[in-house]
Each structure stands twice: as C-alpha cells, then as structure tokens.
C-alpha cells in the first residue's frame, strides 16, 4: 500500500499550488507574446500598440483622478443595476415556483427579454432615457432574465419530497424559507451572482460606450476611440477585464465556507 508522510503531503500540496498558478501564467505569457509579435507586425501604435506602451498608459491612468472617478461610477452603477436585477429575479423566481399561473404568465415575457438584441435595446433606451439611466436599464433588462432562469432552476431542483416532509410535520413557513429554501439555493445563487456580476459589468460598459455616459469607463473608451488612442482603449479594456475577474473570484472565494455541506451528495 502506498504511504505518504506529512512532509511528503505538504510538499505535494505546494507543488499543486505552484502548478495551479503556473497554467494561467503560461496562458497570459502566450497572449502577451502574440500581442507583442502582432504589434511588431502592425508597426503602428494606432492599429496595435505594444504591450509595454499599453502598460505605461495603464499606469498613467491609475495615477489620474478622472480615471478613478469614472471607474467608481461604472462600478457603482454596475452594482446598483445588478442588485436591482437580482432582487427582481429573486421575487419573480420565487413567485413562479409557488404559483404556476404566474409562471405561465411571466415566462413568455422572460423569453422575449432574453431574445432582445442588446445593442438595439441600448439604442432605444438612449433615445428614451438619460445616458446613465439607459446603462442601468439595459443591464437590468439583459441580466434579470438570465438570473431569473438560474434561480428558478435552482428552486425547481429542491426536492419536492422535502416540501412534502415540511407539510406533513407542519413546519413553519418562515423556517422553511430561512432554513431550507435559502440555504439550499445558496450555492446556485453564489455561482449566479459571481458570473452575473462580471457579465453585468461587461454589458454596462458596452451601454456606457454607446450612450456616452458622462464620467464612466465607457465614456473614456469612447473618447479613446475618437482620438485613435488605442493604447488607452486597451488599458481600459484590461481594467474592465481585471475588475470582472476579481469580482467573480472574490465572491466565489468568500462564499466557499457557506456551502461546505455540498461537497458530497447525501440521499434526502
């Protein structure tokens, strides 16, 4: 039989962590290399600036007050629209799970929302609303149906026999909601939150670009495009990507202890 002592196990754990870090680094390195070679081939800072020039511009942005103001505005707007979408999706999801008629009424509307072309919605909303409001509304209209579908599927996955058990034993509704439904939904909700937040940020930035929302990442990108400042455009894109990835990773990591029970399945 194979035996491992403590030191051996510790060492293999460290190697595993190292490898886990190595793979993304290799990918990022390969992307940077292709980018660098592409910039050499393009031979134009307008078409494709070198990674070093973009990094320089990024560092310059990080020192500028206007960048932080725009970044904070975009982030707050994104969080606000996401919270709104999430609350609405949760309300509609729970209602659909509880009331079949409501579900039948709402599903066609959700299907239409999900099929809406994002750019068309943004253009219409820009006509109807202020640029800031349009950005929030578009994130709401596009993200909410996705969240609704994910939450409803999680609700549907809670075993009916557990609800029957609660009914037989006359368990209080507040206890069913607080100690059964919500904790069992949590893993799905966290995953939805994490991926939804980054998707929401991407959409919001796109809406800000099209509606030219003042003091936002999107407006900065728009300006960079108008002035052919490709290095700044790429630097802002990197900011947006890093923010989205960090938000997704942060939520997943912070929430891990909340669903330790799900590590292995148990027959219910």
């Amino acid at each position, binding site marked *: 039989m194979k035996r491992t002592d403590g030191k051996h196990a510790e060492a293999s754990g460290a190697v595993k962590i190292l490898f886990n870090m190595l793979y993304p680094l290799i990918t990022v390195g390969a992307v940077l290399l292709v980018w660098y070679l592409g910039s050499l081939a393009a031979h134009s800072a307008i078409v494709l600036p070198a990674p070093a020039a973009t990094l320089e511009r990024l560092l310059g942005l990080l020192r500028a007050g206007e960048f932080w103001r725009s970044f904070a505005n975009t982030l707050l707007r994104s969080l606000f629209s996401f919270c709104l979408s999430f609350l609405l999706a949760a309300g509609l999801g729970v209602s659909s799970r509880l009331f079949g008629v409501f579900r039948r009424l709402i599903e066609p509307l959700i299907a239409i929302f999900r099929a809406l072309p994002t750019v068309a919605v943004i253009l219409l909303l820009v006509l109807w609303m202020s640029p800031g409001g349009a950005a929030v509304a578009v994130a709401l209209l596009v993200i909410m149906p996705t969240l609704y579908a994910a939450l409803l599927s999680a609700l549907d996955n809670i075993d009916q026999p557990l609800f029957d058990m609660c009914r*037989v*034993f006359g368990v209080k509704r507040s206890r069913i909601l607080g*100690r059964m439904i919500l*904790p069992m939904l949590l893993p799905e909700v966290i995953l939805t939150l994490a991926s939804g937040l980054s998707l929401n940020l991407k959409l919001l930035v796109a809406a800000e670009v099209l509606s030219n929302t003042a003091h936002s990442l999107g407006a900065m990108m728009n300006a960079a495009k108008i002035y052919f400042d490709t290095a700044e455009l790429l630097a802002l894109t990197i900011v947006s990507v890093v923010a989205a990835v960090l938000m997704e990773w942060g939520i997943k990591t912070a929430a891990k202890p909340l669903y330790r*029970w*799900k590590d292995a*399945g148990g027959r*219910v």
Partner: protein
Amino acid sequence: MIEIKHLDKAYGEKEVYRDFSFSFRENTVTAILGESGCGKTTLLNILAGLTPYQAGEVPDLTPLSFIFQTDRLLPHLSVRDNLWFVTGKRELDDDLRRAGLYEARDSYIKDISGGQRRRVSILRAFLYPAKTILMDEPFLNIDLKLKRELMDFYLSYYEGGKRTALFVTHDPDEALYLSARVVVLKAGRIVFDAENPKNKPLPREALTNALING
C-alpha cells in the same frame, strides 16, 4: 377506531381504490402488507394529506408524524438542527444520547452513515408531538442486521409511549416483527386481515400465501 370509508382514488385512468373502507385501532401498530403498486403508499399519502382523492371519508389525523421511505433530511443542517427543524426543540442531548446519535450531533447528514440517517429519521418522527405515526417502508433496502437493529430501535421508542401507527411494507418478516395486526392488500382490496399477538404470532406462510395468491 380510525376509519376510512368508501374511498375512491384513481391516477388518470388507473384506478387504485374503489369504494375502499378500512379501519385501524388506536395505540397499536397495524401493518399493511402488499406488493409494489398495490396502493400502500397512496393510502399513507392520502392520510397525510399529500395526495388528493376523488371520493370518500378520510379522517383528519393532524398533527401526525411520518417515517418516509427515504430519509428526507436536510443535507445542509446538522443532525441536531434537522431534529430542531421539525420539532422546534432545542434541548435534544438526552434524546440524542438515547438514540446513539450524540457523537454525531453536529455532523452534516452527508457525513453520517445510512444507518444513522435512518435513526435520525425515526427519532424525528418520535420527537414530533403526534398521536399517529405513518411509516412508508422505512426499512427498505437495508441489510438484515441493520434492519433488525433499526426495528428494535423503533420498538424501544414505540413501547416508551404508545401511539397509533400504520406501517406499510412488502416484507412479511417486518410486518410480523413490528405489528399487532397484519392486513394484506392486493389491487386496492383487503385479501387478508388477522391479529398478530405477541404470545401467538401469525405463521409466516399465511402471509406469504395471501401475498402470492390473494
């Protein structure tokens, strides 16, 4: 006596009960023995208010307790919290000790054995303040040794404070071991009905014959 009168129940075209009447005594265990699909579980679900029926008189047994075929425990709660969830009782140490579950009291359900889960499920049913307990094949798919241990565990609780119990099974040995009366059900009809006194238990052959031949 608890009485069900003239029950009609069908799932679409498939008729399960037609003008079915049945009664069982309070404070005793009555076993309903029958093969799969004979309507045993449907009867319990009707009594528990989980399944609607077309016609007939069914007594309201609430508050009632139920030992389900599967454990129906909440995977994200500990053993102790699962008991609290249903009973609302916080002081559970003595009950957990008696059930041999004290050491596992703070474990998640996924971390305890199948036998322990069954114990939690049985303990939950007995801690819930109800006069009637319905049991739907609670010892199904359990190996013989553990089954005997769990049946004794069940009896120790049952003898401690008798309640009315209706017990559904397809195993004649379980029916003979646990109940004071055995009823054999076939295609929604009672084909055998006899007392099973402790001093003079029913012969196993009688039940097997009734199950096979009706």
